[in-house]
């Protein structure tokens, strides 16, 4: 399990290889990459700066990686979240999950992203044509995280 916060970009292929090399038991690798978009609700974004809470960000992501491991039969999980100033087209976040079968890998990656959005202490400040403002939290993200707490919505559950 690896959780990394960094300013630098990441190499998706290298991160997958890190989890899969030398193994023959992995049948599924699911990856999610979040990318900085050039627009947000009709506004053109020139750049964004990601602020984070060092120490808590790692701890909070790790807690959810451990929960994902308890819910699904995973071989490995890597989460990388960048911070600092990013421009449209830059990678922001990477989740890689490996398992024997796709259901667990897909579900774990989606679960981790839903929680990263709502529970990991990161804040985005956007730069738009000379002005800068903090991005507001979206209710849709809270709803996406909440559905994992509802009974009966446990895709690919370990049990």
């Amino acid at each position, binding site marked *: 399990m690896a959780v990394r916060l960094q300013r630098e970009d990441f190499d998706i292929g290298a991160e997958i290889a890190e989890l899969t090399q030398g193994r023959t038991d992995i049948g599924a690798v699911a990856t999610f990459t979040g990318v900085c978009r050039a627009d947000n609700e009709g506004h053109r974004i020139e750049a964004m700066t990601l*602020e984070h809470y060092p120490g808590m*960000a790692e701890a*909070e992501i790790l807690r959810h990686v451990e929960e994902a491991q308890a819910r699904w039969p995973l071989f490995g999980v890597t989460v990388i979240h960048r911070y600092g100033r990013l421009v449209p087209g830059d990678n922001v976040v990477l989740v890689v999950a490996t398992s024997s079968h796709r259901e667990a890998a897909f579900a774990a990656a989606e679960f981790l992203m839903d929680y990263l959005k709502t*529970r990991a202490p990161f*804040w*985005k400040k956007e730069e738009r044509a000379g002005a800068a403002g903090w991005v*507001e*939290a979206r209710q849709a993200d809270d709803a996406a995280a909440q559905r994992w707490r509802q009974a009966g919505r446990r895709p690919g559950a370990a049990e």
Partner: protein
Amino acid sequence: MKLLYFAWVRERVGKPEEEIDPPPNVRTIGELMAWLSRRGEEYAYAFENAKVIRAAIDHAHVKPDTAIAGAREIAFFPPMTGG
């Protein structure tokens, strides 16, 4: 105890962190926010809508009614927008 502020809470308070020693009648996160908001205009502005502000004690999310006794580090911040 050490207080940390992030994003617009940090900008409104005007500093990223500080050491504080609240009186003993300040027992919970909610009471701490109310006490802070009486320390000056910048705090009143930062905590004017306390319901939207999130808090963490020693790197874990907590609710407004959580006791602050024994906390080493308390952070206040807006709803998170990472990912």
